[in-house]
């Protein structure tokens, strides 16, 4: 295998809070190859966003980040502010869930995209910058781009604002785009448009992308490989088909079994039961054990590590049997 574009090793994030500390991310290993789409799925608090914000150096000051993240051959955890600034918006483009809070409300969108270009390409002539801004807006299919450049964010719809965010993310031809719930705030027909814009861009530029989402349907449609996170860890990872059709972790299967499906009527949906872990109390064993139908005493004693079982890598002491047992329990 060639060198990965991005490699996380044992990445951890702890937040110091008044009552002690919250372990949001607890040793995440993850890699992204050039040109591929990697999905990170999980529920609220699983650590999926914190993982990516950590490597971008965008976490609040009370966060303690550990482990390693190598991007394009160089370490970025603990890198200097100026190194990180050159990466962010440069080789790494970012798209967040809520474009209204990510865009500056008092500046025109043209100004903001131009700024993103000028920071990374200070020698570019102003005329050339503005031409590039228009080209970017056209690339993300914003109608009447030359007029729209003069609009402020509040004059645009949510879908249009997200297109502006995408235009900014790709302004400097990044090698990696990190998209954190890019379509969650949007209506479904607008979501389809945005996913299409992203797919078109990727086809044109072959940029790698990490897409963070809670929506397994979105992941099924866009990702090449998928990481399932739970309780601050990756509990299963594999190619998208392997994960959906031969996933081995009881949580992965639980997630799929609890989703109603558009193409099926009268199926029974099976709640996982219980609640996600509270991360200020570090569990000694597997963090999914309290909700797992296949849990054994050993599951509470030691935390399983990712290992290859069948088609995917799974962090479960009893894979592949656990998936079968838990399926039986929930039927």
């Amino acid at each position, binding site marked *: 295998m060639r060198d990965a574009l991005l490699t996380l090793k044992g990445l951890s994030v702890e937040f110091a809070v008044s009552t002690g500390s919250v372990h949001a991310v607890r040793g995440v290993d993850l890699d992204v190859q050039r040109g591929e789409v990697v999905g990170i799925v999980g529920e609220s608090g699983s650590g999926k966003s914190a993982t990516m914000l950590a490597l971008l150096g965008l976490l609040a000051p009370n966060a303690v980040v550990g482990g390693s993240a190598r991007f394009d051959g160089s370490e970025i955890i603990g890198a200097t502010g100026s190194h990180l600034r050159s990466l962010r918006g440069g080789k790494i483009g970012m798209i967040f869930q809520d474009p209204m809070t990510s865009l500056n409300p008092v500046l025109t969108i043209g100004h903001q995209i131009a700024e993103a270009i000028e920071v990374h390409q200070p020698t570019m002539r102003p005329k050339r910058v503005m031409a590039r801004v228009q080209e970017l807006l056209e690339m993300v299919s914003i109608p009447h781009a030359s007029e729209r450049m003069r609009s402020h964010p509040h004059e645009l719809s949510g879908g249009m604002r997200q297109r502006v965010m995408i235009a900014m993310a790709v302004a400097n031809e990044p090698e990696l785009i990190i998209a954190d719930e890019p379509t969650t705030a949007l209506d479904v027909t607008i979501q389809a448009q945005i996913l299409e814009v992203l797919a078109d861009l990727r086809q044109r530029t072959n940029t790698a992308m990490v897409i963070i989402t*809670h929506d397994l349907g979105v992941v099924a449609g866009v990702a090449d490989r998928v990481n399932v996170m739970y309780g601050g860890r990756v509990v299963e990872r594999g190619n998208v088909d392997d994960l959906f059709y031969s996933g081995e972790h009881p949580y992965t299967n639980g997630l799929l079994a609890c989703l109603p499906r558009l193409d099926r009527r009268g199926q029974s949906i099976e709640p996982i039961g219980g609640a996600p872990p509270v991360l200020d109390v570090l569990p000694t064993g597997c963090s999914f054990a309290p909700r797992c139908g296949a849990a054994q005493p050993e599951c509470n004693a030691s935390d399983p590590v990712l290992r290859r079982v069948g088609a995917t890598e799974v962090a479960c002491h009893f894979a592949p049997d656990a998936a079968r047992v838990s399926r039986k329990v929930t039927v």
Partner: protein
Amino acid sequence: MTEPDNSSTPLLQVRDLVKSFPVGSSRRGGQVQAVAGVSFDLQRGETLSLVGESGCGKSTTARCVVRILDPSSGTVRFDGTDLGNLDAGGLRSMRSRFQMVFQDPQASLNPRMTVGDILNEPLEIHGVDRAEASERINELLSLVQLRPSDLDRYPHQFSGGQRQRIGIVRALVLRPEMIALDEPVSALDVSIQAEIIRLLEQLRDQFGLAYLFIAHDLSVVRHLSDHVAVMYLGKFVETGTNEQIYESTAHPYTQALLAAAPIPDPQVERSRTRIVLVGEPPSPINPPSGCRFRTRCWKAEARCAEEEPQLADPGIGHLVACHFPEVSNVILHRSTNYREAIT
């Protein structure tokens, strides 16, 4: 049945419901019709879902039905009684028969009241005596898997899923016949969402409840509904049974919605029909002439701008408001490609 039918008395009968809101300065006196004339029936024990995207008027419709908002025109009859003719007292006593559950349980439960107070309040208002009240509350608490000791706690001490269960109990304590559910699972994580959906099904079966279910998630709607009405810019564009809407889809907008809803199955996702609509919904302040959907429709012709299509059955067994309806199963169809350039 969502088809207007006057032969039997449905539990809920809505006719030509319109709700306008003033917009802009009073001098200019603009109006926006959030709901622009919808009619439907809801039978006892049945679930009717109103689906559509933000701003289509589905929540406003539900709020007019339970009279949180007063309709601008049209009638809402509950069990034969026109709610518009009731005085405040009459409406209050009628309200015990229909209740509402809101999307955000955090915002709809008073943070300064204990769960016990929250659940007792409707019972006090409706004059249910204390012994009876506490019996009802305890029975419902155990049904939704909360403990009697939870009555002394405050909403913030519960998880999102638990809070939604409290909201559901509050709606149930008066033993209503109908509940309007406004996006009851949208704010919840998927594993919790499944729990609430199962609970709603169980309660419906146990108490014979009718649900007016407001949702944008078409997979959840498929799972829960008997009938479905699809809304666009304040009007119904297609209504029918669950099977009719999902398997014999006739309106281009419904087809686009269904084609855009993701399915958690990679092979299905790779091979299914794509319909990517042009543009965004126009402003309801100034809706397009003729068919309101025509500005985004790939089938639109001159006629669509001149003549508004009426909600009618073009011989397919359900109602659709389109000049050029074509029945299609967009969820299952492979390879048809409606892909549109975004202009």
